[in-house]
């Protein structure tokens, strides 16, 4: 009844070009939607494959990097140097990257930094060096005046020591006179989980003031400074490797979840499409039959 009416009065309802609108999506709309979701699923599947390959490599490289990082940390643990929490000027280094679609990796690091700044209550004395555009974008919304340096073009290739050396040089050359420094990054726990952790970075004066420092023989300032600079670069390298591995694994799980969701959407849409198609055919048959019966 309604179909005949709408055909008879095309002028009054001009946008109703199709015969079966009325709140249920038309066949063409469903088909367009189905095609677009299928394309998205292809993209997320391929991204999952790519990040699975990158994750395999990052995990392989993480094994020696972990031993390297443990070795670099060992001295600071053995010499029992403590980070003086009462000193004001705090430099935080955030390790994120340029590429998104990796779950909550970047926001986890920034949330940790924000929480730490809240608990210390010192947002004026804290300065942040951020590695990676995504981290910088999140920080700029609220803490843009605390950012003193940022690194971009990071995250596409696996990290190498030269990158770590660059970051370390920036930390050492910065104008901001910090009393303590912290490195914040994600530690890889397993394929589906990571932990946001921090590493304290000590200055030569802090080491000289530690308890067991006197046990160490024949150390002049030059040697200690060189040693500390190299250790800083080593720790940054360790953080970069851990962060890269966590990011790739997180991206892999995120893209896997996205592909699964897209698959579910495709199933639901296909069912709706078939039902709509059958309804259209049934309606046309009814029209033909009623038309023929009227004759």
């Amino acid at each position, binding site marked *: 009844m309604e179909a005949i009416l709408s055909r008879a009065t095309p002028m009054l309802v001009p946008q109703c070009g199709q015969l079966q609108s009325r709140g249920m999506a038309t066949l063409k709309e469903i088909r367009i939607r189905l095609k677009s979701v299928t394309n998205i699923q292809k993209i997320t599947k391929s991204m999952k494959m790519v990040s699975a390959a990158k994750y395999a490599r990052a995990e392989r490289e993480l094994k*020696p990097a972990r031993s390297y990082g443990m070795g670099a940390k060992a001295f600071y643990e*053995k010499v029992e140097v403590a980070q003086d929490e009462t000193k004001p000027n705090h430099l935080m280094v955030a390790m994120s990257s340029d590429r998104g679609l990796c779950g909550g990796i970047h926001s986890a690091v920034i949330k940790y930094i924000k929480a730490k700044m809240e608990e210390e209550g010192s947002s004026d004395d804290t300065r942040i060096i951020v590695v990676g555009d995504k981290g910088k974008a999140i920080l700029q919304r609220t803490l843009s005046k605390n950012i003193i340096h940022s690194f971009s073009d990071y995250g596409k290739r696996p990290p190498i020591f030269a990158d770590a050396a660059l970051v370390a040089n920036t930390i050492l050359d910065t104008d901001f006179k910090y009393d303590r420094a912290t490195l914040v990054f994600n530690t890889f726990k397993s394929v589906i989980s990571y932990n946001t952790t921090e590493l304290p970075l000590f200055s030569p004066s802090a080491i000289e003031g530690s308890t067991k420092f006197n046990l160490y023989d024949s*150390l002049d300032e030059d040697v200690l400074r060189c040693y500390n600079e*190299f250790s800083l670069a080593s720790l940054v390298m360790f953080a970069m490797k851990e962060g890269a591995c966590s990011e790739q694994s997180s991206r892999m799980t995120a893209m896997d979840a996205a592909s699964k969701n897209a698959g579910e959407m495709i199933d639901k849409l296909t069912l709706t499409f078939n039902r709509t198609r059958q309804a259209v055919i049934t309606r046309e048959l009814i029209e033909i039959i009623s038309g023929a019966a009227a004759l």
Partner: protein
Amino acid sequence: MAAAVLRQAARTSLRLQQCSRLIAASHRNYADMAFTFASPYDVYYKDAKVKQIDVPTFSGNFGILPDHVPTLAVLKPGVINVTEEDGSNKKYFVSSGSVTINDDSSVQILAEEAHPVDRLDAASIRDGMSKAQQQASSAASETAKAEAQIAVECYEALQKAVDA
């Protein structure tokens, strides 16, 4: 009577304490070296037990035995010689890095680049050496000159490692 017994007991406990301290000290003399040698890309030894390590540093070349006095040092380009428990020698070329010897006799050597000496190729070392020397002579600024000089020193050390 009781006082004498008490004094005796005190003396024996003191003796026991002294003995245990001596035993502990002598155990410490034969402490195992937990040797970790790694670069960011390779780990060669992790908490391993070795007999001796010879390292080239800016404060001189020295050998590290178990229970070496705690110290820190900065590596210079050269060859690290590791004498393992069974007496075999392994040589590794390192470009730069740090050496840490802690008071519990653990040794950590972190190198920016570390490769076994048998992986080095003499021909490419000679090429690299001549190129580095060219750059050193034609360097413009102070930093460029310093960097080229570092490269030349590294290649000289590589040459020595391959020739040895």
